């Protein structure tokens, strides 16, 4: 199969690419664009290490063909911090020991950003746990992650109030 042309906006940068239709979004990010923050864990949609936001929605990039997402807006872990300033979710993960070896953490953080944007969990720890159950971490940082999500939501709400005021 010949390669097909696609356009993707990744972390605000526009990329025009030729891709083999078999290439997943995950492999494109890692192998072609050197955005290796997004991790390949199970490669079958079960561990969540490859989570990215596509047009604002968190998905498993391992189960997404790049060609099928032609024109999409993709946010990866590399696009989350503002320069040297960590995103409140990243800062909260560090503060609450939710940040472990770095293999599952990028996916956990992207999944948390998606969870907060979905607005379904609120401050209910059980809803946060269910909402992040697509991200598996054998370091068992889960308790710290729930604390981090609660604090990050508070920080983001405060920032929103400041912006509004």
């Amino acid at each position, binding site marked *: 199969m010949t390669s097909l042309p696609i356009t993707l906006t990744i972390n605000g940068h526009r990329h025009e690419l030729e891709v083999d*239709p078999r290439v997943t979004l995950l492999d494109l990010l890692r192998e072609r664009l050197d955005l290796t923050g997004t991790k390949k864990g199970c490669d079958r949609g079960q561990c969540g290490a490859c989570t990215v936001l596509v047009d604002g*929605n968190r998905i498993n990039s391992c189960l997404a*063909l790049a*060609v099928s997402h032609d024109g999409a807006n993709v946010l990866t872990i590399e696009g989350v911090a503002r320069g040297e300033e960590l995103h409140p979710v990243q800062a909260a993960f560090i503060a609450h020991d939710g940040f472990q070896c770095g293999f599952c953490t990028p996916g956990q953080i992207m999944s948390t950003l998606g969870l907060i944007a979905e607005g379904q969990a609120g401050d209910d720890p059980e809803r946060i*746990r269910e909402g992040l159950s*697509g991200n598996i971490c054998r370091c068992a940082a889960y308790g710290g992650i729930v604390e981090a999500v609660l604090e990050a939501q508070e920080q983001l709400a405060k920032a929103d109030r400041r912006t509004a005021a």
Partner: protein
Amino acid sequence: MRDFDYVRPATIPDAIAAAARPGSAYLAGGTNLLDLMKGGITSPERVVDISRLPELNRVERLDDGSLRIGALVRNADLAHDTAFAKAYPAVAEALLSGASAQLRNAATVGGNLLQRTRCSYFYDTASACNRREPGTGCDAIGGENRLHAVLGWSDACIATHPSDFCVPLVALDAVVEIEGKQGRRHVTLEEFHRLPGETPQRENVLEPGDLIVAVRLPAEAASFAANARYLKVRERTSFAFAVVSAAAALVVDSGKIRAARLALGGVAAKPWRARSAEAVLLGADANEATFASAADAALADASPSGDNAFKIELARRIVVRALTSALAGTPERIPALPASPFSSIPGARHDA
């Protein structure tokens, strides 16, 4: 993953023409198809990407009061649609109990109906599987089969259908709208999936090129909104397929059951409508004795296909509990752990 031709048709007729050729597969959310392709379980020569076909991502109320859900509506979008969850709470609960948020954000309504079995022998290309490769036998029979079918199975295949979403849908008389070379037709979800018989590879009534364009819920489906639940037992609290699940929907008036719907998941190769149980429920007093009789009726034809006799008793208990939960009333909001039997009714918690 094997090489394939990728096409992205702009219209439904073009999609049907492209997919009618042998060796074609439709791609929507891709959450199941890509997994199968990576494992070499399926190797389509042509992938027909329907994810951008117009008009298939809408939910609309029709003049006859039925709800038409486009095949490309995402599972998460449907479950989080407040009006939808209010009218069809058991369906929303089933959707939110399935998979993970990432998968629900990608998976589609039409794709969910076509989800393949999660039988581990089907997924293992070194094993014999009549469903994957007709005529090779079934290694699940005599193998690790404690999660396999207890209803409607055959000597050729004992796999189960994995969907949560389809269970309340089949209980509520959902209809599948199919567009094909011969035009548009409607098939009830109950008739859509096939039992394995001698041809487990034929999982549903679709012909080459046939495209699911929508799923319809008839007007009556919303009449159960006050007393409808989905319950799912699984081997971990979230992000797991059902060992057994049940959707129960009741209309109760002065203690009598005026209408009843019941379906089971995880027990057969299709979402299992328990019509014999519904017959027991209809007109009877709404109490635990009635529910126990209904559960007996639902499982009357069940038999183990291996090490899974426990599923028959488990299914009976889940039926009673689903009916008890439905009678207690649909919760205002879907619980934090959707479809968990541990958060829905008094006395049913681990720590109680």
